């Protein structure tokens, strides 16, 4: 028996209360780490863009289109290596309407632009010789050979239980109707923040079946030969179309992603606020528990002091007791968040990522909760006048 053992014995005094307090801290830290993970994932999604790419969109808003006729003019700008058309599709799986995943239509130049970000890990065999776009992965021959083919992220394949070669149907919301597509390739993200939850398909399929030859496109993605010239090229592009009916806003793909995230409005702020509120609420719960636990043991502190326990020893014991509860709950809650929520699908954001730094922050917060909640009762216990404390026995 030593002082630490005595602290643990005291923790076991009221097992239900200790367990409930520990669980409340656990849930709070689980929530804190989860919310912080969402914020980190939002931030991470901004980094998914590369410096070698620019995104050209309508200057009015992201949802306004641009003419397809801009493509050759963009390709002609010095320093632009490649231009791809892309369009948000916004469909859903009719068998799982709430299971959101992103779908983009892209032209033949689209996939090669992302060669550094994705790798084809599974692909169907091509029916015969196929003319591939410049720089395209030869394994995508079957995809390029078939207008209704699509490429799916590995995690999305697993989540949906789809198989290579399977024909799936997507229900269009922006472009109504059923859209059968055959999975001809599966990609994996080379960088985690790129995500593996997206479906990519041919722009011609969308244009012919859904856009009725409107000649419009959602955005252009420019691959740059020299990233150092990104600023100049962006200015050139926007100047080129300044006085047209479809003025452009050209920005780095990171800035574009940040703009996309900003559409969440103040949600990140609210998430942060919620995290702080949860932690503060639990601080009060822990403090209340510690005060109650100490009040019940006033006479025992009197006895310990009579036996020669110093004020500092009593103070430390109470503080350690509080810290063990909150630290225990904090560690379990933070790790549970890390291992239970990591990789959870967040729609068109990358999968939820909870960093070890978040876990460490959570554990430090748990320690601080322990220290703060234990401070007042520890001080009170240490300052007890022995004869007053012993009188409580009677």
């Amino acid at each position, binding site marked *: 028996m030593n002082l630490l053992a*005595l602290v643990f*014995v005291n923790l076991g005094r009221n097992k239900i209360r200790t367990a409930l307090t520990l669980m409340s801290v656990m849930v709070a830290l689980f929530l804190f780490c989860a919310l912080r993970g969402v914020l980190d994932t939002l931030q991470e999604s901004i980094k998914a863009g590369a410096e070698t790419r620019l995104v050209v969109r309508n200057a009015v808003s992201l949802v306004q289109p641009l003419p397809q006729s801009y493509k050759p003019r963009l390709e002609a700008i010095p320093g632009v290596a490649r231009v791809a058309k892309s369009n948000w599709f916004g469909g859903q799986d009719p068998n799982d309407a709430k299971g959101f995943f992103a779908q983009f239509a892209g032209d033949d130049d689209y996939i090669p632009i992302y060669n550094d970000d994705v790798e084809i890990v599974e692909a169907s065999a091509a029916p015969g010789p196929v003319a591939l776009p410049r720089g395209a992965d030869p394994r995508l021959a079957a995809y390029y050979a078939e207008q209704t083919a699509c490429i799916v992220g590995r995690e999305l394949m697993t989540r949906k239980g789809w198989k290579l070669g399977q024909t799936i149907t997507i229900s269009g919301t922006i472009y109504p109707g059923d859209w059968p597509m055959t999975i001809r390739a599966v990609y994996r993200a080379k960088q985690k923040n790129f995500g593996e939850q997206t479906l990519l398909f041919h722009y011609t399929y969308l244009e012919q079946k859904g856009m009725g030859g409107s000649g419009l496109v959602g955005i252009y993605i420019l691959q740059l030969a020299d990233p150092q010239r990104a600023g100049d090229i962006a200015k050139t592009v926007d100047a080129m179309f300044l006085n047209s009916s479809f003025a452009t806003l050209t920005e780095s793909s990171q800035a574009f992603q940040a703009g996309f995230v900003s559409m969440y409005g103040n949600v990140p702020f609210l998430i942060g606020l919620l995290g702080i509120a949860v932690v503060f609420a639990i601080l009060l719960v822990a403090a209340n528990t510690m005060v109650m636990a100490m009040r019940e043991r006033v006479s025992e502190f009197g006895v310990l002091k*009579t036996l020669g326990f110093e004020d500092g020893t009593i103070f430390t014991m109470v503080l350690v007791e509080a810290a063990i509860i909150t630290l225990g709950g904090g560690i379990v809650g933070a790790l549970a968040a890390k291992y239970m929520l990591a990789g959870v699908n967040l729609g068109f954001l990358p999968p939820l990522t909870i960093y070890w730094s978040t876990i460490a922050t959570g554990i430090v917060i748990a320690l601080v909760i322990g220290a703060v909640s234990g401070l007042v009762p520890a001080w009170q216990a240490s300052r007890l006048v022995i004869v007053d404390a012993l009188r409580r026995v009677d």
Partner: protein
Amino acid sequence: MVMVDVRNVRKVYRRDTQEVPVLDGLSIAIDEGDFVGLMGPSGSGKTTLLNLIGGIDRPTSGELTVAGQALGPLGGRALAKWRSRTIGYIFQLYNLIPVLTAEQNVELPLMLVRMSGKERRDRARHALGIVGLADRVKHFPRQLSGGQEQRVAIARAIVSDPRVLLADEPTGDLDRKSGDEILELLARLNREHQKTIVMVTHDSHAAERAHRVVHLDKGVLSA
């Protein structure tokens, strides 16, 4: 040798704005190895005197010297350390920690001393053996009778081998038979282990065990 020397001690409690004198210029000397019974009506200052001798309360004025140590100059930490080495305290209601076994309760004072866990356990068991509870070391207080609980409390009081035992109505909550056993135990500790004992009691039967009985009334010694 004088073990406890109380000189002209006054103790006044404050209740709101009122001053309540409990001890009024009390002086008493207790020799080493003595067994003194403190008797007197409720409110006469018996427990207050015991608390002052034990260093768990401080006098308003006057001097106390116990086991050669003047208590007045000692600060809080030094007093706590001195108490752990010099004083064994026995309460009327035993005041055992309910979640600790008899052995663990007895180990408590030894936690303040640097020693191995095994040595601590051995000494606790030895103390429990002295009070006749060698077979109850793993029992919790709720599993013991009142007399046994008080014997555990006595084992706790003697485990660090203090020179002075202070007992505040140690038989006050016990039946006659158990009370007699506790008194016999205290007498034996005084006789065989040379402990100086100061015992507060209301019970004249208990006081008969003491070598001498001191009566207090309204904060002063009476005849």
